[in-house]
Structure formats: C-alpha cells, structure tokens
C-alpha cells in the first residue's frame, strides 16, 4: 500500500506541476499530509513549486468538490482531484449551473477505500484501520467523469463496477463496496421503530445539533448562493438552536438535497455532534427510487434529477 501511495503521490505532483507551469490551470485542489499519520486534509496550490505538498493515501477522505463553489464567479480554470464518490459532486455542480464544465479540469484517482480515523488507538504509530461505512457501502469507486486520470483508473458511470487502477486489489481486499446491500439498513431499522421510539430517536438527535452548518457547507448539493438559514431577517427561521428549530433545519436541508444528494457521506462525516444525517438522505433516496424509478444523482450529467424535471403525463395524485 505504501508503495502504491508513493507512486500515486508522485504522479499527482508531476501532473499538478505541469498543469500549473504550463498555465493550463490557475490552481489545483488536492490533498496534503497532515500533522498525524491518519490525517490527509485538503490543500489548494497555485504555483508549480507547491506541487510537492500534494499527497494521496487512504486518509484523503475529504470530498473537495464543494470548495469549487468559491470559484463559481471566477473565469479561472481550476484542476481538482476526485475519487469515485467525489466525482459525482462535479456532476452535481455542473447540473446545478454552479460551475462551467470548461472551467474545471477533473482528474480522476483510484480509491483504496478510506480509513476511519475514529478507530485510531495509537496516535503516534500507523496502524491498519477499518473502512468508513460510506466506503463499505460505495457503489461508485471509480470516477464517473474525468478529463485526466492517474493510477490507471477507469472512468465509468456503470453502477457497482469493480474498483479499478493501481489500488484495485487494495480496495477489494479492504472491502470497498462489500456492504452495498446494506445501504438502506439504517433507514429500515428506524422505520421499524414504533412512532414513539422514532420520535424519541430524532428528538435526541435534534437536541444535539449546534447549527454549525458544517453538513451544509461541505455539501456539493447545498450550493444556494443565499441559504435561508443564514439570515433570520425574513423570519422564516430563527437562530435559536432549540430541538424544534434544529428539526426544521435538518428536515429542510434533507428535503432540499432530495434527488440531488450524491451520497458522498461528507455531511455525516463532518457533523461534530454525530448526527446520522445519511439516514435522512437515504430515506429520501429510497422514496424517490420508489416513486420515480431507480435514480443515482450526479452520475450522468445529461440525466435530469427526478425533482428537477417535469413531464406532461406526470401523475398528479394530489389534485
């Protein structure tokens, strides 16, 4: 694994250096090695000599695509490295007209599955970590679109395709995608609760939310220029972090990404209060699949999201 990481890191640096040196792009979003062995956070570089900062390994968990929103009003072309799950964020942003496709250079990387830093027991010495749930449940381990690739990864929109490229063996061995069938397990478990249990469950979650909006701010689908939760002036929402107001936020957020959530799992990963946000997203995905037919958001740019299109023969059950 270490050798594969070193090779991918090398390839990443070389490509970024070339792109910046030739002036093809103005900046590159990638990952860099953090302060501890289990941290590989985002980095943005703008000069060829900064390309050495780039690093790739099984801790490069951040989906970087949401950061592109800072460039939505810019004409600068930006390069960005994407794993399979991340790549769907690009489709999301392009479909939502937040990003001009020609202003972003997408570089696909093979993914070995990301380690769960919550399982670290020795903070000084590297150890084997279990995969994050989102990686065990992953159905798109390969980029769904890319202008360039490194590590020989295959670009494909095929659901449940096997992991490809330099990390393919590692990904299979580590269990990437091995729990795809469990994607809706949590939703089913919550649906089996009695109404009182379910209410108590969500009440406990809503009591925890601190309205930090990390879930919203990391999300490529949460891309409104102005979010109603930023201002209480219009009196639709207020800033009180009470369980009722938090529930209003949580449900509004989930409904707003319905049919557009690309299942990158970032919202849940970044929530400091450990709120099972993906359960809400998955509930809506399940419902949409049932009502409108199976649909994976952010896979095919030309396919309209079920709630973003209308047909003349739509059944209007509520009329």
């Amino acid at each position, binding site marked *: 694994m270490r050798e594969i990481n070193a090779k991918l890191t090398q390839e990443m640096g070389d490509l970024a250096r070339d792109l910046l040196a030739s002036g093809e792009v103005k900046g590159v979003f990638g990952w860099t090695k953090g302060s501890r062995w289990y941290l590989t956070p*985002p980095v943005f570089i703008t000069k060829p000599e900064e390309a050495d900062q780039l690093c790739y390994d099984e801790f490069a968990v951040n989906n970087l695509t949401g950061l592109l929103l800072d460039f939505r009003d810019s004409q600068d072309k930006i390069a960005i490295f994407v794993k399979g799950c991340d790549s769907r964020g690009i489709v999301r942003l392009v479909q939502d007209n937040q990003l001009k496709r020609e202003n972003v250079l997408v570089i696909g990387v093979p993914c070995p599955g990301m380690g769960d830093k919550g399982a670290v027991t020795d903070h000084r010495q590297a150890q084997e970590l279990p995969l994050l749930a989102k990686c065990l449940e992953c159905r798109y381990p390969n980029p769904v679109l890319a202008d360039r690739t490194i590590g020989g990864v295959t670009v494909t929109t095929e659901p449940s395709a096997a992991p490809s490229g330099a990390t393919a063996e590692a990904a299979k061995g580590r269990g990437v995608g091995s729990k795809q069938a469990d994607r809706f397990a949590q939703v089913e478990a919550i649906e089996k609760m009695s109404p009182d249990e379910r209410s108590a469950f969500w009440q406990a979650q809503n009591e925890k939310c601190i309205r930090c909006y990390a879930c919203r701010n990391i999300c490529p689908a949460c891309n409104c220029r102005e979010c109603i939760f930023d201002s209480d002036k219009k009196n639709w929402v*207020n800033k009180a972090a009470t369980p009722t107001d938090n529930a209003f936020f949580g449900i509004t957020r989930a409904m707003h990404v319905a049919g557009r959530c690309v299942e990158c799992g970032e919202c849940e990963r970044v929530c400091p209060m450990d709120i099972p946000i993906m359960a809400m997203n998955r509930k809506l995905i399940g419902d949409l699949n049932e009502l409108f037919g199976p649909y994976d958001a952010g896979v095919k740019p030309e396919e309209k999201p079920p709630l973003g299109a209308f047909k003349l023969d739509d059944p209007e059950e509520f009329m």
Partner: protein
Amino acid sequence: MLKAFPKDKLTAVLDTLAKQATLWVPSVVASVSRFAPYGPDREVQLGANTVMSPKEALFPATEKIYEYSAYGIDGEFTPVDPSVGPQILFGLRSCDMQGILCLDDVFLTRGYVDDYYAKKREEATLVTLGCVTPGPDCFCYAMGVNPAEHEASDAQLFDLGDAYGIVARTAKGEALVSALAAAGLLVESNKAPLPTGDFVLKVDAEGITEKLQHMFDHPLWDAFSRKCLNCGACAYICPTCHCFDISDKKRNAHCGVKIKCWDTCMYAEYALMAGGHNPRPSKKERVRQRFMHKLRYFPERYGKLQCTGCGRCIAKCPVNLEITDVIQQVREAKIDG
C-alpha cells in the same frame, strides 16, 4: 497529606453534591461527550476531554433574555431571570477552566458586565481535575496552561490511582469539601498525584502575538482560508469563543421572546452591516479574524491567549485546519520589510 475519596466512592460523592446544586458531569449523551446534569442514569466519564466544552453551563447556546409584546403604543416586556440556581461543574480540565477565565474577561471586565453570564458564574462552583492522559489533539502546555492543576478553580481534584485527592481553593470549594467530609466520604492519603503523560502534538507559541502584529496582510491567510468551510464547528465547540447574536423568536408580529444565541465570525452574515456592506467579505478575512482574535487581539486586550490548547477544534474541523499548524506557519513566515 491530601484529603481524598476512593474511586469506588465516586457515585456517593456525586450523589452528595447533586443534593446541593445542579451538578454538571462529563458524560456521553446520545453518542456525544459533553457536560450534562447528573442523575441516576448518568454515566460519568472522567477519562477523556469532552467534545462539547462546558461553556454551555454558563453561556448556553440559546438563552431567553426577555419576553415582549407590543400592540400599538402598549408595549410590555418581562425580563427573564438569569439565575439558574446553584451549579457545580465537576471534572473540568485545566484547559476548560482557562476557557472560563477567557469568558470572565469578556463578560465581566472592562466595564461591560453581561448579567446573564455574571449570575450563572456567581452561582457556579468549579471543580477541576488534573490531567493524566492528554488526548491526541491536546496542547495546553503550549498555551500557558498547566494540565496538572488550575489555580483559578474552587476545588482541585488529583488522580491518585485508586482515589481522587481534593484541595479546596476558595470559600465555595471549602463548602464543597466540608459537605463531603460531613457525609463521611473523605479519607487522608499520602499518595502523590499521577503525573501527566506525554503530549502527541508538539507546538511552541512563543512570540506569536508579536509576530502577528506584522502579518495582517500576509498571503498566509489566503492559503489557510482556501480549505476552510466557514462553518461554525470550531467556534461552537471552543471553550473560549464567546460571540453571540441578539435575535427574536417571534410568536407573531406583536409579541415574542428576545434571545441571545451563539454566533461566529466564521459566518458571512456575522459582520454584515445594515445597508449591505460587509467588512469581512470573503473566507480570507473571516479566517484571519478567527486566528488574529485568539492569538493577537485577545492577548493585547486581556493579557492571555484566547486558546487553551484543548484541541477540540483540531479534532472536529472537517478540513483539519489546525490552530497548531497556523501557529507553526505564522512563526516560520517571512515578513516583508
């Protein structure tokens, strides 16, 4: 000789204290560790720092200030009593005690007294616990905080291995220790407190305030801000961050409740002025404000860093924008001219 209670008497100690006041203990509530009111089902976790800082006991995330109604010229308002009765905060770490000192500076000094904070602070007895095993993200030693004990608390606990030693520092602390003695829970111990273990994170903040005085326009802020999400996670879990907004919870057009609720300089709306001008228009200015406030403006005004090294923001920042890394890079940065 130290007064002490055996660890297996912890429940009896807490039961005794809970009779006197609302007792806040570190615990895990719905999978998040935080200070929570003690009760029969509450499991106390003294082994590690909490995710949420204890500031919520003195400075709640949302607090009512007054209720109002205004029909025509008939206005009426009913203040909300800031008192919550006596509280004991049990098992605070040195970093969290230091955080409360920062809140004291802001809410109680320089002629600006926040009645809502002041009342709760006055009613609170603070019991600190010396750290034995620093967490992976801790760096209090670098922020001028002694992990082994904090001299500003009302009473200090020491881990003696099989018992907790307790030393009273103030009249409130004496009262608490006497109550435990009266309940027959205290013994004498000649054991020494366990030493504080090694820190994983290494950082040196020497001279940081002076260095930052020359770095308002440094390109570093742009670099840091590129990955920041401008969420409020770092500020809301920080024991020292104290910004709040005064807002309404309206019942209808005429009546409602005024609330004081947490706010953060990371939000775009935070510095937005009437008329639409925003002096901190982009992430760069907001990120700069966060670190400048903690490491430069606060020390300039109050003589202490506004970071206690608790490591919470390091643990929870979604993009791993570490304050220790900021300190390091600021110290290494070249300044023009």
